[in-house]
């Protein structure tokens, strides 16, 4: 870890510690992980921007059906490419210490494919399709039925889509969300 340490000054680390849910040690560990994705590039420039494909090499993101969405949500340039700061942000949100409300906020943006700030029928459909995976097909009719049930249950103002408060309400009532929306560094 000595090598990584030399890439950050004490102030930078303090800054990161103030702004994320990590300790200094964990930040250095995160940087080590980030460096593993592209050793030369990050070795030159500790805050190098890696393409989305590179970021998706990270084991948890590689197998995650929402990997590309996660990259896009956290990317500061909004195209999925991530700098170390974006990566750190991502890991901080997925850490244990992050409060549920912040997690819910990001989860909402991950599931909101078309970016209209509502989880509409199309968003829900995509979420279900990605969850089920490409190998196991669930018929369109079934998905429709599922979405109907979801909306009947959670769409409090009956407008055919889930807004953020409705989504947050659901997440707030879920005891398993914190367990599932978590990536160990």
């Amino acid at each position, binding site marked *: 870890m000595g090598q990584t340490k030399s890439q950050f000054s004490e102030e930078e680390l303090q800054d990161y510690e103030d702004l994320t849910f990590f300790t200094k040690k*964990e930040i250095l560990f995160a940087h080590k992980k980030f460096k593993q994705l592209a050793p030369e590039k990050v070795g030159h420039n500790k805050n190098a921007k890696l393409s989305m494909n590179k970021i998706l090499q990270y084991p948890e993101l590689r197998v995650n059906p929402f990997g590309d969405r996660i990259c896009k949500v956290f990317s500061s340039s909004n195209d999925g490419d991530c700098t170390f700061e974006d990566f750190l942000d991502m890991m901080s949100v997925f850490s244990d210490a992050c409060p549920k409300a912040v997690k819910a906020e990001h989860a909402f943006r991950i599931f909101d494919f078309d970016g209209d700030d509502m989880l509409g029928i199309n968003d829900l459909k995509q979420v279900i399709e990605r969850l089920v995976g490409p190998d196991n097909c669930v018929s369109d009719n079934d998905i429709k039925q599922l979405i109907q049930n979801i909306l009947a249950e959670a769409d409090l103002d009956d407008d055919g889509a889930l807004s953020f408060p409705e989504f947050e309400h659901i997440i707030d009532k879920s005891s398993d969300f914190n367990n599932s929306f978590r990536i160990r560094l």
Partner: protein
Amino acid sequence: MSHQGHVNAVFNADLDRIEVAHSSTSDLHSTGSQSFLTDSHTNFRFTRAESPDGSRVGTPSNMVRRWSQNLSKFGKGKKSIREKTIYRLPSRKIFQVDGQLLAQSDLEVDDLANEIEQHEYLMQDSVTGEQLRMDTIRALPHSLATKRQIKERLSVSITQHAQQETSTVFKRTKNKTMKAVVHFWNNATSFIGGLELWYGSMKQIEGHFGSGVGTYFVFLRWLFLLNLYLLLFTFAFITLPQITYNAIEKEESTLGNTSSDRVWDVLTGEGFMKHSILFYGAYANETFKITPPKYYSLPHAYFMTMLCLYISTFVIISSSMARSYRRSFIETSGGIRHMYTHKIFCAWDFGISNSKAAQLKHLSIANELREILQMINNTEIKLTKLQRFWIACTRTTAHLLVFGMIIGLGVGMWMLLQELANEGDTSTWTTLYLPLSVNITMIILQNVFSWIAHMEDYNTPQRTLHVTLFRNFLLEAVIVGVLVYFWLQKAHSECWETSIGQEIYRLILMDFIISILGTSAVQACQGLLNLKYPEFIQVPEFDISRKSLGLVYNQTLLWVGLLFAPMIALVVTIKMILTFYIKKLTLIYFCKTPKHVWRSAQTQTLYLVFSFLSLLGVIVAHGYIMTQVPVSKTCGPFRNKHYMFQIFIEGVLALRANHWVWRLIMLLARPAVMGGILLTMSVLVYYLRSKSKARIGMVKLLKEMLYMEAKDKEFLLSCITRITQDKEWLFEDEQVKDERRGRHNYAESSSTWKYERPLRNGATIRSRRI
């Protein structure tokens, strides 16, 4: 969607995503699109909870004021309306400080910083102020760059602020020392926090098998740490003094003859083990001189350490149980109401890092969704009376059968114990009969129970799991209960405390050999055979529930035995380390993830409840032993007393018979006082219960209100649609018609806001009703 299409025509092509709704409850003080905007956002969060000090902060009028202020700021900017509005949408741009809503976009660092600056307590140039400020900034749902900008801006304004203020030397030094202390504290906690036990293993397990399997290991680790705590204290205050005493007095313990004997002795706890410091009997009834005026009394240390350990463990277990219960049952209302949404939004386990595990996860989610769909379709088909009768019959039979088996086991064990006691033979094998038979029958019965639960055919796997868990727990409780009761019947033989300790030791050891080594070996064989003959033998599943319950059983044995064998904590700690690695290896190489999606949080709570119940039982039993069962006269630290607790009474409390502590205890022990306390508690419970009932009613009302709001929205949208379609005010005609019917009477004309009024009245009527 078609409504919204028309909305565009009225306002602006940019306004395509605005919610034009929710505009009924608040004062609309200006006209045009802006007031629409104002409202659409303010109402979104009206279900928000109360602020920490209990006052309702986000009242609608407050919010409107805030929003109108913000909007007036907007008017000066040159951004398009879309930009202005899209960032106003609730999902992204709202966060809360102290229950108040704030909003901003990525481009509005200034706004956000301004908002934070308005809060006095966040802007203090003190350590706590900085802590709070950092916590607030950290919890913003924004990118790191934005947060950094905000932090910089705030630090600038704080230094400005601080310069203006004249501060005394005292204040500055106080601040500095506080900062140093906090800095040190942060460093220390980050160092300790970095030392998470078995971190790499946990990550590997969760990455390969998901967080469901992870919960078993988390529970194991938690119990391990708890036992480490027990070990630390028993060793420091009981065993270490005894060891030093033995070393000084040169007391040789009687050793076994040959080395082969020793192996058996370790296994059975007989022979040289019987007189080792593992068990109660080896502890001396002595007071050691440390330096002449200071003494160390082993009996007192023994009693007080045990008392403190049992009480503190009880506190730890009950508080973590309460926390877990609150988190997974109360705060989430049991998680029943949002079944479908939870199954979608909490389905993926983001910790999975292995492609095989990911495929399995996809498959299990797909299966679960299919099951739900089937359930939806099935509930529509009503069961006939005969079918329902049949189900009720099978379930009652199953329950009776299980209870019969458990009772039968209890009676059988009792007879076996009698038989063994009558023989009076303490040779190697007979001592192992009992633990062996207990363990084997337990495994067999557990299998039988899961088979019975499978036959009962419950609606949900969750239900099946809970029923089986409960039965298994009952089985274990009966076994331990019968054992303890039997030993207490025989509690007048010579040095009976050590014999109980030995029995417990044997049970724990056999549990390790059979339930952990044995089952792991069987699973390993199964896994290997599966590689050769995949068509005949299936890969074993990692049964999280039964294994976790095994941990609870193990822990119960430890708690029973601790009083009679202080060093049994060491045995259990070592056992748990071994268990962790053995289970991890069998899991990674030979097992597969359970098929069903594992709802961890609630089942986790159930284990804590079981642990709590076991500990409660053990404490009651020990309380009885300490006060009612005479101690043996020939061994142990209490050998010259009648009962264990006398040491406490005579030694500590009776130092001064008239001491106020003693009198207070006597006072509290009076029936009248106890009755009074109980009565107060009952009243308190009644009060809280009725309060929670009232809250539930309130929630229902609010939901109804929300639904009415939705209706209002629909109505407004349809009105706007009508207007935009016709491009003219057809309103007059309708008004006339309405007036003829006597429905409404509008004083003015020619404004959209006429629609507003009846709605507002409607809203006020509703709110009055509430």
